[in-house]
């Protein structure tokens, strides 16, 4: 039951109906839990739910253990303490929470680590817990998403940023919340629980806007992403059989496919939640219009990179050892270069983990190193490039310059895609061979003699993708101006806005890639 399938839409219709009919907040939460269980049963299998329940219990128990220690601290706190004394007082209590925090995090992370090790060791995967034994792996639906969120929740409790919930059902509802369990966004459970505690009443405009966003997501996924996958799956499936020009086209389309697939899914997920009155974190902010690598990763899969920043990057940067190292680097290499060199370490750590999160092969480690090198070099060379710009008198505020920077950033992303295509999995040798294929076997005429339309991706498909991408680019551009296209549409006369939405429904119905004859492509970010 994929988010773009008929059964999901039927399920969603029934779920929303019940959700809005039941009057009390607890009943709405019960509806959410039942909906989650049903969804998980159909998509993941109920036996995999045991792992989610186990993680939920661990999270619940350890968060309360940590919290109790702090409560005791609160009870035992002397009335009059100076600021310094209070800091030291809490440090002592924080130390007491270290062990339960570490145990909790290790238990929660262990399943994810085990599956990652299993993948690296090529262990056979099984479908149910009953078949699970050492040397076999089970990858429960949405494992990495709820693991990351759970770890974040526990660390926040440990750092006294939040008060954990005592209601295990609320925690369970958040952990298994069906819109986010498959592909995220990696949510902040505390914020989610706060919203579940006070679910707003049905609001017609919000409900409509949520569904409009779902429709937009379906358009991106079914009309654009799945259509492109016809071409990219063929070319990347046997990349060395194709001409360089065809691979370049596949690489460009691959960028659009990943973006429309993942952001389309997020639109559906956020739209569904919005219609219920639940606000989720945004995961994309028009990333293909980014002007630099750093900007790109601030706008692409935002929740994942925020999680890495908050729970990996920042703890490293704030560690005493790192601060000493940072100081030493600055002393030796100067302020700018020293800082860049020092920050290389947390940056490389984050990027390698990001690579391993995407996949367990060497190609994904190479992918992580590629981005780590790129961001580091970008930092190091930033002042030099600024100087060059000044010397050459480039008009850095002009549209042309911005466009150049956008294309350059997208190219970096495009190139990273080539690192992980089939074929380069054979290692550096495979990657070099691919580069040679791009140059020596370019055969540019293949783009013009109609050959690229012979792999199932027709000229009509290409035209649909072209027009679709223009529309998406336009909508993204408007969004960068801090406006929402759907808000602009909502301001139009009823005939015009209804025409727009009905046209979009027709486009999805007619041009969407679904139904028998298509093997509906899974969402790319499902399965992490």
């Amino acid at each position, binding site marked *: 039951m994929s988010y773009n399938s008929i059964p999901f839409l039927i399920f969603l219709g029934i779920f929303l109906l019940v959700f809005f009919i039941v009057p009390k907040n607890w009943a709405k939460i019960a509806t959410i839990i039942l909906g989650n269980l049903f969804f998980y049963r159909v998509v993941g299998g109920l036996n995999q739910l045991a792992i989610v329940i186990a993680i939920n219990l661990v999270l619940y128990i350890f968060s309360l253990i940590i919290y109790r220690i702090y409560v005791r601290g609160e009870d035992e706190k002397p009335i009059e303490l100076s600021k310094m004394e209070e800091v030291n007082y809490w440090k002592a209590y924080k130390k007491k929470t270290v062990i339960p925090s570490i145990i909790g995090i290790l238990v929660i992370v262990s399943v994810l680590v085990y599956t990652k090790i299993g993948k690296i060791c090529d262990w056979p995967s099984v479908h149910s817990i009953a078949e699970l034994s050492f040397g076999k792996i089970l990858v429960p639906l949405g494992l990495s998403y709820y693991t990351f969120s759970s770890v974040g929740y526990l660390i926040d409790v440990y750092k006294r940023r939040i008060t954990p919930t005592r209601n295990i059902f609320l925690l369970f509802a958040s952990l298994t919340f069906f819109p986010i369990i498959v592909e995220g966004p990696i949510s902040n459970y505390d914020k989610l629980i706060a919203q579940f505690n006070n679910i707003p009443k049905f609001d017609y405009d919000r409900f409509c806007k949520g569904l409009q966003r779902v429709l937009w997501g379906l358009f991106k996924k079914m009309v654009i992403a799945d259509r492109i996958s016809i071409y990219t799956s063929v070319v990347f499936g046997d990349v060395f059989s194709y001409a360089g020009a065809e691979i370049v086209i596949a690489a460009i389309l691959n960028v659009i496919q990943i973006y429309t697939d993942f952001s389309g899914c997020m639109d559906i997920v956020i739209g569904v939640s919005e219609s219920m009155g639940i606000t989720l974190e945004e995961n994309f902010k028009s990333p293909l219009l980014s002007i630099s690598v750093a900007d790109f990763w601030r706008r692409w899969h935002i929740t994942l990179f925020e999680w890495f920043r908050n729970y990996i990057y920042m703890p490293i940067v704030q560690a005493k050892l790192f601060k000493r190292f940072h100081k030493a680097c600055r002393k030796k290499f100067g302020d700018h270069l020293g800082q860049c060199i020092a920050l290389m370490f947390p940056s490389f750590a984050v990027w390698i983990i990001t690579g391993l999160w995407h996949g367990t092969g060497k190609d994904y480690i190479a992918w992580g190193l590629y981005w780590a090198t790129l961001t580091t070099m970008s930092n190091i060379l930033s002042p030099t490039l600024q100087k060059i710009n000044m010397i050459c008198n480039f008009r850095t505020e002009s549209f042309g310059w911005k466009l150049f920077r956008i294309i350059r950033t997208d190219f970096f992303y495009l190139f990273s895609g080539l690192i992980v295509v089939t074929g380069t999995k054979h290692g550096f040798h495979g990657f070099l061979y691919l580069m040679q294929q791009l140059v020596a076997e370019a055969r540019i005429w293949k783009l013009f003699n109609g050959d690229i339309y012979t792999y199932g991706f027709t000229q009509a498909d290409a035209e649909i993708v072209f027009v679709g991408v223009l529309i998406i680019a336009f909508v993204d551009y408007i969004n960068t101006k801090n406006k929402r296209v759907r808000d602009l549409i909502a301001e139009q006369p009823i005939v015009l806005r209804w025409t727009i939405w009905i046209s979009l429904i027709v486009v999805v119905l007619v041009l969407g890639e679904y139904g*028998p004859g298509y093997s509906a492509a899974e969402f790319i970010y499902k399965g992490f």
Partner: protein
Amino acid sequence: MEKSNKASKKNKILKIVKTVIFLLIIGFVATRLTYLFRNTSYDRNHITGIKTEKDIDVVCIGASGTFTSWEPFRAWEDYGITSYNLATNSITPPLLKSYVKYAMKTQNPDLYIVDLRQIGNSDADTMLGHEGGIRNGIDSLDVSLLRIECVNDCFDYYSSDTSISSMDFWSYYFDIAKYHTKLNSLNEISLKNINNNMPSTDKGFEFVHMYYQYLQEPDNQTDKIGELTNRNKECLVELLQFCKDSNLNVLFIVTPGRIAKGGMTIYNAAGKLVEENGFRFINCNEYYDEIGLDFSKDFYNAGHCNVYGAEKYTDFMAKYVKEYYDLNDHRGDPEYSDWDEYLVTAKEKDKESKKCVDDAVNKVNMAHNNNMQLKNINDIASWIYKADSDQNTILVTSRNSVIKSTYMPWRVSNSSENMIRIFIGDSEVYSSDVELDSPYTSTIGSNELSYTINCGQGIVLNIGNENYSFSNDGTYITVFDNNYNEVVDIIRIYDKDGRTVMEHL
């Protein structure tokens, strides 16, 4: 305060109204898109056409056996009965009840004639295997609760079939999922079907003149009562119960065809069940003589009448229903004058169709006459010229010899019943029918005789009960008359003293 409450209430009502209107528009657009993208075929027209008919006396429900046999224009001409064939190809048993219900939505006929030909379907039949037949029916019905019920019935019937994917499953309910890819093949006819109410030009009847097959009357008469499979029995019981509950006049029949004895026992069982429930049952395959069917002329294949057979069947059946059911004669009634107009055009079509069948019969007879002369021809080129007919199957076999291209000027068409197959040693080097699974065994002729070619030590050809052994030298060409189901001639061609020799076996 009261004013603001009123305004809020008004606002709420307005939003509800807007939502309902929006949903109605979406529903309307989605339904029209569904109709637009569906297949356009005569099957669909048979379903949609009944909506445009008025005051139909007899609705004939069934599969292709029905729409090729019952001629509404003839029933009108002879008895003043208005009738319509609500029938689609390869109908599956659960659809029969749905079709009755569908007919009831737009007509109030005096009689339903339900063809139970399909009630003998095997339990091994799968939904996937019958997809065409099922979709001919359900994907022609209006988007409605009846259609959903109809799909449910089909899934119940094929409940043991687990091979249906989730997407296939849902596409039966939302058939736009199946057809939306046909954007490039939309045409003017698709647009005409956008409201799913395209009329049927011949009241659901199809003039069959394209094909003709020479058949022999089967030896199938038996009183033995066989056994309906559980799911077929359940289907029939449900149908009978529905007809009883709805107080309908229904005549259950089996349309004529070349039915085997085993099949007849199943129909006997069905007939018994029908009669036990108080309805009449006629298996037309018990009345070949009374109907006057000539198997050598009246069929276009083993399962279907051509226009000659249809004429005889309609005469027989119309007379029967007139005699046993209270049907009014509307001839001369000005309200039915459109039927007189239809009669004129239908008779013209009937005449043309019969001429086509006559031509086909002549062709078969001519081929047979040619075949009779083959044994007297001793020149290879002349022999091949005579044998080369699309009414024959040609089997060329050679153990060791190279088959010379001069032996291969055949023009036999690419069809399972008119084919040429060439074997050298253990391998088949050519077959005009690319869909055959096994190169060494298949069926030929209108009687579907099985044949086997064994290319082991020597070549052995088995056709039906006949065995032919060929030596290892030379090329053997066997000519089989597909219509008369017999081997007409076999020749051996070999080289002797530097010259090519041909001999008849």
